[in-house]
């Protein structure tokens, strides 16, 4: 199939992008890497009046190091994480995650901002950045605002983002040098979306522990009780709570789906403690 006709404009700067979106009166849409939007346009699942291309916005391609934080421009590509061309706030987690998304050709184009804005529940970045406790920087006609990712994901494919707003950057606290992580993606073949994702982070220095169960129906689920048990009582205690925590958080899952999510989370925990 071929996309239905649309207009195209390349924004020269952020202000122009915001203005173009506004002029589109609800029918304008941003395109970044085009790796989700492109197929949807071609399948005519999405129609747009005007495509606003932000690929050339250099301001969205920077990485800023702050006090214990890192701020990634929304246009950083998956492959830039994979290749270590940007500093890794997750002590190697982001490199691992970026390299496991899709295929190289998709990673060369697909962007962090596009992935988070698209908010596909099965995508990798929303789970990884939920675990890292990310905050999104957003620019719109009314100015700037920030939005915690965990609260900003309203449902499948729904980020709390207005039609004329642009996700410009993603800010995360840096993990301490001794922090450890586990990432387990279960998918049917290399390059496919996940059937289940488990993420576990333990930063004893900062007293931060988070466990995430991803690739579920809606936004990734933070398993707080599991994290608390892990931090306070250690690996076995945390691990043992996973089945009940997953069952409670995701009651609609069938037995196979539930089992996969439990295994993904448990394997992520095992990785934290060095299997």
């Amino acid at each position, binding site marked *: *199939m*071929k*996309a*239905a*006709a649309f207009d195209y404009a390349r924004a020269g700067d952020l202000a122009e992008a915001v203005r173009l979106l506004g002029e589109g009166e609800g029918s304008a849409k941003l395109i970044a890497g085009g790796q989700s939007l492109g*197929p949807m346009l071609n*399948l*005519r699942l999405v129609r747009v009046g005007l495509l606003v291309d932000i690929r050339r916005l250099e301001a969205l391609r920077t990485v800023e190091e702050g006090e214990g934080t890192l701020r990634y421009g929304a246009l950083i590509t998956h492959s830039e994480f994979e290749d270590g061309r940007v500093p890794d706030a997750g002590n190697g987690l982001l490199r691992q995650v970026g390299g496991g998304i899709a295929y190289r050709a998709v990673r060369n184009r697909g962007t962090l901002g596009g992935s988070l804005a698209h908010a596909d529940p099965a995508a990798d970045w929303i789970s990884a950045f939920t675990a890292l406790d990310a905050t999104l920087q957003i620019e719109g006609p009314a100015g700037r605002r920030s939005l915690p990712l965990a609260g900003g994901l309203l449902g499948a494919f729904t980020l709390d983002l207005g039609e004329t707003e642009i996700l410009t950057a993603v800010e995360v606290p840096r993990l301490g040098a001794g922090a450890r992580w586990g990432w387990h993606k*279960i998918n*049917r*073949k*290399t*390059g*496919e*979306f996940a*059937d289940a994702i488990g993420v576990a982070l333990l930063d004893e220095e900062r007293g931060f522990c988070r466990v995430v169960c991803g690739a579920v129906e809606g936004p990734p689920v933070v398993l707080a009780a599991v994290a608390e048990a892990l931090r306070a009582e250690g690996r076995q205690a945390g691990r043992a709570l996973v*089945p*009940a925590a997953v*069952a409670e958080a995701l009651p609609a899952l069938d*037995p*196979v789906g*539930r*089992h*996969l999510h*439990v*295994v993904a989370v*448990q394997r992520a925990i095992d990785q934290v403690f060095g299997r």
Partner: protein
Amino acid sequence: MSEKPEPSGTGIGVRVRRKEDRRHLQGRGRFVADLAMPGLLEVAFLRSPVAHARLTGWRKAPGAEARCFFLEDLEGLQPIVARSSLKGYKVSEWPALARDKLRYVGECVAACVAPTRAEAEDLAEACGLDYEELPAVIDPLAARRAGSPLVHESWGDNLFLETFVDGDIDAIARTAAVKVEREYATARQCMHPMEGKGLLAWWDDRADQLVVHTSTQVPHVIRTGLAECLGLEQRRVRIAPPDVGGGFGYKCILQPEELVVAWLAMTYRRPFRWVEDRREHLVAGANAREHHYKVTAYADARGRLLALDAEVTVNVGAYSVYPFTACLEAAQAGGNLPGPYDFRNYRCRTYSVASNKPPFTPYRGVARPGVCFAIELTIDAIARAVGREPAEVRAENLVPGSAMPYDNVTNKHYDSGDYPESLRRAMARIDLPAVRTRQAQGEPDGRLIGVGFSTFTEQSAHGTKVFASWGIPMVPGYEQATVRLTPEGGVEVRAGIHTIGQGLETTLAQVASEILTIPVERIGVVLGDTAETPYSTGAYASRGAVMAGGAVSRSATALAGQIKAIAAHLLQCEPAEVSFEGGRIRGGNASLDFADVGRAWYLNPEQLPDGVDARGLEATEGFKPKVDSGAFTYATHAAVVAVDPETGKVEILDYVVIEDCGTMINPMIVEGQAFGGSAQGIGTALFEESPYDAAGQPLHSTLADYLLPGPSELPSFRIEHMETPSPYTAHGIKGVGEGGAIAPPGAIVNAINDAVKGLGVEMTEIPVSPRRLLGKILAARSGTPSGLEAAE
């Protein structure tokens, strides 16, 4: 298997690099989508959104009515009808565009034309349909039951055909030590040639001909079928297929889109094109593979198979394809289920069932991936029942080499080879004892190791009698080729079969080179174009190398005689004294270039006496094997897998192929066929399926839902050849195009079952997706069919 001297030159047996690869690797191939023509209009189809409905009305795109076509607009166009001479066969009429009923999601209902595909799709969207939905027929077993909704009401049931092979089972059933009963199911699949279907048709006023550049495996058959549907004389239709990017059977059939595009070009005398996209292929293209088996096997206490009682149901979809009919698949299933095994009591009933799914067409291996899966799992089940090593039980059941040629229980004539030897070599190559040791030790990561084997025969190039017995409208006879020496001593080979990626441009040149000793670089091969080549039923059934190869061999041999007659004059010797060597012609003490002969005949006939052979330097001969019931290629595949019992994921750790396709024209191409086929077989075993919901909606509309194995899912195949020439074919060649795809489901699922046998799990349905496998493991753990306890 005899020791042969190392072949030289570019003849048979040499690993010549494929001639066609240069243009493909440089992106210079020309496929339907690459063609350009002034005034070309692109066609998009409005397709049925529902599986089963009565079509009550339609509306054309407002303002663009003249560019939208429904069936009533296609004056004179006949539906696709494939008749069968089999008794009881019910004929379906497949209209180019739906008439009064919609019978599957994706069925063509209207065609819209515009300068670009996107605009044509806009028009298709702007057309409207009115319909009343009917309950859909999806599951083939349910479709067989009385009271099922009917796909074709006038039939009274949903059966295209029911067949029955009767054999004496009952006496053995009463006394056999072991009885194994199983049901097997194989998923519906799409074939996914890298290039989808497509065609460009235009009217050539000078030749007063409709010219059709269609992506097909069977150009001459398409000409016959298309001309009949269009009501044109066949001489006024030329099929000139461009490069074809894979076929696998999908491009063996006449498609409704082909009829519509051809009708438009014929009627409006301007070029039209349709290029299938991946979504159309997934949803609307002809499907394959959906079988269901009920098998009861009887064996003695050692696991010797004594009798087999089977019921095979094939879900053949809404309409019969042309030319293969809706019944070739089931006919092959019933005939091939006994496999390479030596037993004499067989009973089998087959059902070809209509449903509200796209039509069904044979896919690489035809029914054999299904039957091989069924019989190979049954052999392993017998082995487990008698508590023996499955490979050994298999070896004892195979037709022994000493029995060749062997007529099996369904009268298949196994011409040559040593089936148990292929299995023994596979056992050695995979190192069965080492795998068993590793399996017993257990893996550090908790995965379970298993090993499985699968031995099969591939009836290749089966000919006239076999196809006639299937009753289909197209029965292959003699295959012909033309071989011509050009004035400068080059060669042109022309054959009506088409090249679809299988390397025929190279292998046919090698056969000519073998006889004429002229190197393949100087041999051009023209294939497929009906204006330039002799009639051929085309590329299917692993027949290209045997049939077209045989025809080239015969024609080149005839041409060699003609060349020798002329050369004898020039060399002043007897024709019998003339021989070819290394691209030169020798006779007496002198030698000539082929160019000397070419020049003498074409340009300087004054050098030749009157009365020299008037046929000149061109020969067209036909070929058919001495016994044309098929040259049986065979192979054993062996797989070692690791199963993750917590995720259901299967990794193939090792994969061995021991194959015997008779004389190999080009071992490199044979290996390519084995690897590519095996990759598709791995898809069948582990990944590929086209699921439908109860309303008949396909749940697979992109390659994100329909998984094909990629490089990272495929093992490094290890292959070993045996080479038993067929006693019946030219040069002892057997076909090899399909075999790779046949064995993997059997070998892999046997390996999986070997891995998980300690868990009380046995898989009988493919693909073995992680979800299916894990579901069974969890059910076995919790002791319930579907429930489970939370994981630890």
